[in-house]
């Protein structure tokens, strides 16, 4: 099963390398990893998506917790969360199909951020399902380039 871990770490050089190295040498699989500063500048938050059963995730969390620079590990898989990924996608868009693509963009509430002579760049945010749906809808037109971030997530309500 896929788990989402929110890991608070000291904003020190080498932290990311330590976390990534830990996963590599213990044989855990990272599906995605996003890291960035938090409201406290000395603390960064790493959002990790990891594949594994309960036992594996428990070990992952414990091993992360042992790291000197790790402050807290939260498994937020079963919590009510808001999740987002960012997608940039360059799609072939010759004049005859442009209108159709723009309608799809409208429906998914994405944005066109660049217009070329024969292509468009589309920016979208959303959860995994929405991102997948957008990609699927635009596939028939010919996707020339695609880049996406991993997922960031936040638990709903007061915490």
């Amino acid at each position, binding site marked *: 099963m896929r788990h989402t871990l929110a890991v608070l770490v*000291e904003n020190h*050089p*080498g932290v990311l*390398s*330590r976390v990534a*190295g*830990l996963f590599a*040498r213990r044989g855990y699989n990272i599906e995605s990893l996003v890291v960035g500063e938090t409201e406290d500048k000395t603390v960064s938050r790493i959002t990790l998506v990891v594949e594994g059963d309960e*036992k594996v995730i*428990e*070990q992952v969390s*414990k*091993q992360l*917790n*042992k*790291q*000197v*620079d*790790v*402050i*807290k590990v939260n498994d937020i898989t079963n919590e009510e969360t808001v999740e987002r990924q960012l997608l940039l996608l360059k799609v072939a868009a010759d004049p005859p199909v442009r209108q159709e693509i723009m309608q799809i963009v409208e429906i998914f509430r994405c944005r066109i951020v660049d217009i070329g002579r024969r292509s468009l760049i589309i920016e979208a945010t959303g959860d995994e399902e929405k991102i997948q749906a957008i990609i699927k809808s635009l596939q028939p037109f010919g996707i020339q380039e695609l880049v996406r971030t991993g997922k960031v997530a936040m638990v709903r309500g007061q915490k």
Partner: protein
Amino acid sequence: MNGAQYIVKFLENKGVDVVFGYPGGAVIPFYDVLGRSSLRHILTRHEQGAVHAADGYARATGKPGVCIATSGPGATNLVTGIANAYLDSVPLLAITGQVGLDSIGRDAFQEADIMGITMPVTKHSYLVKDMKHLPPVLEEAWNVATTGRKGPVLIDIPKDIFMGSVDLTKAYPGITTRKGNHKNGLENQLPKIMACLTEAKKPLILAGGGVIASQAWEQLLQLVRYTNLPVVTTFMGKGALPENHPACLGIVGMHGLPAANLALSECDVLLAIGTRFSDRVTGKPRNFIPHAQIIHVDIDPAELCKNIRTDIPVVCDGQKFLVHLLKALKEANICFQIEDWWSEIKNWQKKYPMKYEKCPNLKPQHVVEEVANQAGDKVIVVTDVGQHQWFTAQYYPVGGKRSFISSGGLGTMGFGLPAAIGASLGRPGEMVVLFTGDGSFQMNIQELATLAQLQLPVKIFILNNACLGMVRQWQELFFDRHYAHSLFNYNPDFVRLAEVYGIKALKITDPKEVTGVVAQALRTSGPVIVECMVESGENVFPMVPPGGRPNEMLGRWQDEAHISRIS
């Protein structure tokens, strides 16, 4: 005050008396200060010798070992020793010099990213890139190495940080950890443990290295006196209870004693303290005593449920746990009615004693046994890695309190000699007995110069079987006796070699000489080397084949079909 002076002062304030190291370009500014300080610096003949000596010192004293090396090759030569300390949870502070700040990342002369290299084998590693980080980093590094589950920490210090000046007008606040507490602490679990132990018909204590690391030997002894529970130990836990104590059944695992392994297979409640259930103890984790309830106490939460299933996990320091458990047992007035269990155990001890043939050739066990007879349990026993390590573990009953020093987790050949030097420096006035092999001994043989210079009372017994015994044994048992590159066709004459270094040397070739030569060696003051020409084909038995159950022991015990039938 410059960085180097600050570091020396810091070490002095922490009570460090001995450091081990080897100078080089990047650390000359540090040595310049160190050489004028009150710290005693031991110049080894290789950085690996320095780190193992610091490790041996730490194991013998409980205080962190400190070692120093220069940048690049100096630092990378520490890596094996750091990994060795990491796997055995030994507190160690490694200080390495680094090229100047401006040169970092430019492949400068003698530059290596030692912080990156040691990341997976340290509790933490630091690169100090700013003068103002030096004081807090030193403090935190010391804390990390010596608290919780102990382990090695590396601080990489660029040359200009040694020479830059530390602003002493500023306060450097101590480190406040932002981590929370862990559930499964002792308070929550104690009632469950009591209930589980009370119902046990065949309870057994498994004492690991954590008992020794938490200095809980006295508490374990008290618990055993009160409860009469039988105790087995892991390899790292050897000496957690004095081995001549009747409740101590000895080591379990791959080459454990038969009665200890049988007790482990047959127990219904296992109280495991300070052990990580290594594969050398469990075999295949799924097959490991499936019928028994397992209470697992460890200071490192990550060890609980890592390798085996655990019924009652407890995050706790070994000593604290034993104190509270004994108190609770006394308050509840619980006594254990385990006479039947004990008679079963005693029956195994009688039926399957450790044994070997003493003649006609010289047997390695014979030498170990005779040294044990004569030197007794008041000495520090150190080993290298290989067959001799296990002959020592099996045939030398040690006295407890940090009296057995060996590379358990990493199995580092070449550990013995420098570790014996470090142990001897940590415990002056005590005799150190080192058992090594012709293979291991040659891996850090350069430290004979260090030993000769220091004239430490280290008695070295080289069990020379002219081969890499443990490799040869596995090849015999599992690779159709194809002895690929495990037999030494050429070895130096170790007696003459010792004499070149100015160390007294003796030789044993005949079993009849053992008693006399051992006595002569132990009488000799200062270092002495005894080369023992032992039988090449001797194997370490019993042996649980890799992945086997604790009761599936090869060796003479194999024929006694009873053992393999118990399950």
